[in-house]
């Protein structure tokens, strides 16, 4: 990793002597580094939260997958034909990926919490269920109901998403909030790096004055500051990301029941996303400082 005082390796300018004109130390330097680090750290957490929420909403969505149940109540002798008829209807309904009759055994298992294991499902005039999975297009529930009413009189369509949807919505909202927090922090980072640059420029007004006096062009002065600050932001972001990643990794949430919020954390390739953070923050810093430097140079005319 490039350290902020190390002039090598960052490809903004090959003229490494150039940013020597900006004092290498000082607290505005530390400030930029720290700001980037803190922001990167927080972004890592927001990202972890957002990804966890996204995973959750994905899982729930998949579990429901527009899931629905068709319930058929019919006299025992008609049950077979009605089931077959219903399956036929469902198979020809656009948007339905799969329709499967739930076996008596499965039905027994589903009902067990309510009736205990001894319920004679076969002997009872209880309805049979057909599990429906829709495909990505989704199906027209209203149209299906009308068709069923005509062709399978004993069928009632029960749409799970009616009551499970809010769960997915909630997870999606956490995901959206996470993204919102990330955007917010990126904006905050940019603003802070801008302010830190301007603070540094103001603190280095003498440097600017001296450089102007000896005939340095604005582009020369600006490049020195921009390079220095971009490097600092990159360095800080790398540290913040590293520490954040470590903290997320160490967070004791793995062995928890993974059912609802499967723990903060990144999975496999998601860790690689983190590698993009420092460069992104450095790019933000680059534009923020360039903007700040130009404005400050106009002001310090």
């Amino acid at each position, binding site marked *: 990793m490039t350290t902020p005082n190390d002039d090598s390796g960052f490809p903004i300018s090959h003229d490494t002597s150039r940013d020597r004109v900006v004092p290498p130390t000082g607290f505005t330097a530390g400030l930029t580094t720290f700001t980037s680090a803190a922001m990167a750290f927080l972004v890592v957490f927001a990202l972890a939260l957002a990804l966890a929420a996204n995973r959750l909403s994905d899982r729930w969505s998949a579990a429901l997958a527009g899931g629905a149940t068709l319930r058929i109540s019919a006299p025992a002798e008609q049950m077979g034909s009605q089931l077959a008829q219903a399956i036929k209807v469902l198979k020809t309904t656009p948007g339905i990926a799969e329709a499967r009759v739930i076996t008596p055994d499965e039905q027994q298992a589903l009902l067990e919490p309510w009736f205990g294991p001894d319920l004679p499902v076969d002997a009872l005039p209880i309805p049979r269920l057909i599990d429906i999975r829709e495909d990505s297009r989704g199906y027209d529930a209203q149209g299906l109901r009308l068709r069923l009413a005509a062709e399978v009189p004993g069928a009632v369509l029960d749409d799970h998403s009616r009551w499970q949807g809010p769960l997915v919505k909630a997870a999606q909202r956490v995901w959206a909030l996470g993204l919102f927090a990330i955007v917010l922090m990126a904006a905050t980072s940019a603003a802070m790096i801008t302010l830190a640059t301007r603070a540094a420029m103001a603190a280095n007004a003498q440097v600017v004055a*001296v450089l102007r006096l000896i*005939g*340095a062009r*604005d582009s020369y002065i600006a490049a020195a500051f921009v390079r220095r600050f971009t490097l600092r932001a990159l360095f800080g972001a790398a540290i913040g990301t590293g520490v954040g990643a470590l903290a997320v990794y160490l967070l004791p949430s793995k062995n928890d029941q993974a059912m609802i919020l499967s723990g903060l954390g990144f999975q496999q390739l998601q860790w690689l996303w983190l590698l993009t953070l420092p460069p992104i923050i450095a790019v933000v810093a680059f534009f923020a400082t360039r903007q700040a430097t130009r404005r400050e140079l106009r002001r310090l005319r």
Partner: protein
Amino acid sequence: MLKEHGLIDLENVAYTYSGGELLSEMTLSIASGAFYFLTGPSGSGKTTFLKMCYGALVPTTGTITIFGQDPRKMTRDDIALTRRRIGVVHQDCQFLDHLNVVDNIALPLAAAGQDTLADGANLKELLNWVGLGHRADALPPELSGGERQRAALARAVIMSPDIILADEPTGNVDWEMSQRLLQLLVELNRMGKTVVIASHDLSLIRAAKTEVQARVLRIYNKRVQLAGANL
């Protein structure tokens, strides 16, 4: 056009700070190759005059022409390029406090994109001239007042500029050293450089008159006048 006029021409120039008019009706020309002293009481406007000459201030009214160009019509890059032809010694000499004396003196070379090392020999000579050979690695805040002034003078001449504008370059140095610095400026003048020295030190001016054909500009009652032989 550059032939007919001086390096820097002022036409009916006036300068007004928020406080009130400081300089007015100045029409004069800094002739190429000449040696000027600029004198006048404290607060009369010597520094202000020099700042107009290197484009740091623009006249409130009237026109100043620097190397044939009007600074009002120059871009900041133009001004930067012009400054490379002007060596300036500021009254409160300013340096980059984190770079050592050599690097500070060589800074104009770096900013102009010239190789510092090629002039290494000259640099050493120059440092010895201003008596800073032994302080080459010191940082500016570690210099004494007079040492800073000498370093500023060295920085002003390193680019071999066409004109040197020095604001009280000997205010903090002893008599002997001031004679030596004067000698340096006189030699540069003999090489064809134009020199303008703002100073209130009349004995320095008198001493210079024995060495060089110096013209004395005097700020008096808001006007700049060419003082006669009598001082």
